[in-house]
């Protein structure tokens, strides 16, 4: 059960990480906020948050499984996360407001 919780959390962090990284791109920021340009102070904190979330996701995968399996789970979770965020941005961008302050 603990393993499952760790893996769900890892997936959550992968999704969050990719969401923050996506929001550092002008086109996606526009999809979410309707603003043509990124606010001056946003990209760096979001980028850092994004990478940190991905690293936490890796740590959670390693806690859940043997390291060789953990790496595969982490890489595949990021693939799933990219596809999910891309489709969310395209169909329901407002869902990503959760990640913006």
């Amino acid at each position, binding site marked *: 059960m603990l393993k499952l919780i760790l893996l769900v959390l890892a997936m959550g962090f992968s999704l969050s990480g990719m969401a923050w990284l996506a929001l550092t791109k002008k086109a996606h920021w526009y999809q979410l906020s309707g603003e043509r340009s990124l606010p001056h102070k946003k990209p760096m904190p979001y980028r850092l948050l994004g990478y940190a979330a991905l690293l936490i996701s890796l740590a959670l995968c390693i806690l859940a499984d043997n390291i060789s399996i953990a790496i595969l789970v982490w890489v595949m979770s990021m*693939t799933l996360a990219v596809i999910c965020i891309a489709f969310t941005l395209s169909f329901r961008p407002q869902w990503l407001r959760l990640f913006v302050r």
Partner: protein
Amino acid sequence: MFNSLRQAMAWLHTWFGLVLGYLLVVIFFFGSLSVFDREIDRWVLPETRFEPQVIPSYSEILEDAFSKLTPDPDELAEARTRVEGELPENLRVLFWGAYTTHRDPTLSIFAEYAIPNNPDDPYDHIHGHATIDPRNGKVLSEDHLNIGSEFFYPLHYSLHLHWKNLGYFIVGFAALMMLVALVSGVVIHRHLFKELFTFRRDKHYQRRVLDLHNLTGVAALPFHFFFALTGLIVFAYIYLPVSETLLAKPAFEYAMQEAEEKGLPFEAAGIPAATASVDEMMAEAKRIWALRDAAGEVGFLLVNHPGDQNSYVSVFRAGTDTVSLVGQGIHFDGHTGELLYEDPVHTAIAGLNEFLIGLHLQHFEHWPLRWLYVFGGLIGCVCIATGFLFFVQKRKRELKSKFGLRSVDAFAVTTITGMLLATVAILVANRLLPADTAGKGSWEIAVFCLTWLLSMAHAFWRSAALKKQALSPAWHEQSFAIAALALSAVLLNWISTGDHLLVTLAEPYWPVASFDLVLMVVSLLSFIIARRLHRKVTVALVGAQPEERKREEVSRA
């Protein structure tokens, strides 16, 4: 010829992608199904629907099952042509083996037999194989086809073309070209990271298809790259068989030297001797693994030179919790039972090799990762399919010959919906044909091939409509057929075995429950897609009518 590297790469990416795209979709699709090959086997063989088993007792089950093994009749017949004089009635056994994973209720056992009197090869040998019920040792009928592991899985890596290993080479070439397509794709993609999350659904069709191609290609780039690469590594010994050709002699000498260093007899002594308790050896191996803080089950058992004074038994740990298939071999003297050799921790290169092969063959116990693999495989199918749909769309106006356009479209229908149709058809055939039908497996394969051929004929026939509209009706018609057949498969499973979803979910028996659920999802999605495509075709036709009328009027005038 090309003004820039990007242009050259674009040419390479487009043409190799198009030529091998159809094949790669088939390889990726059946690879995705192979992730759950054992579970598909449970669905198609109701007599094997019981819990996975560990390797059974040697004295109670295995010894008897091994001794009843016989050489494969085809291999035996072929061997007779290679030897001088007659072959003896009973061939000497070189080894007996048993292999299982955490997903196998049945046990695969096999043997190697020495072929004497071959003037060209003193170490000539043939094989024997059987599948048993490890609970009682009963041999399971070889007449039944494990559709998952014996049909879908080999289709993924050999296309069932066994002549001169032709299928392996075709798939290997496709995998190599997949790597080329990935590298060239990265070179020609102008905004790899900038557009990582881009799917512009409100843009025109061609843009949407290209976005989807880029998104699925880049997001799953590590998956695509490593699966194409490791696919090549798994069968490297077929593509570059140097240890059996150019370097055959040194390879053989090295194997002998290695066996001597480990104290594992390379050859039988020719002196009969009793075998010590193999069960105790397996128990001892498990105790050693537990001491190393790696408690586990036996995944692979080898009894070398059984019944001989030089006999030795190798016990390998199942790689359930690691990416490697099996490992940590412990070797015992078969006659005395004493410990002969423990495999050392592997070198970095050997470890990497095991990781790369295990990554592809996935015998580990990790259900979420297994589903992520299926996701990666299907994303690969989307990437390749959108690649050639983009190609067709872009060149539609350039394609002078109507036949060319019709052919490309018909092949696309055959590859995508036709392949799905053949896949659900073989499952329906499996449930419709009585279990005792002679050659049932061959009938099932015939239904699969025939359905695929019929879908191709249908796709060509219906592509005539492309003269008037942008979409061939074959797409939605075959999608309707997939929806109907997938649902029929679920219902037929219920009727023929009584295992409907309420039973399998309540128990729970996941191999059958989840496969039924997947079939229902496939049926529902196909139905939704078929309806949407049908509506598009109808709208296009209605929309085209005034235009056509106008054209007719102009021509009359």
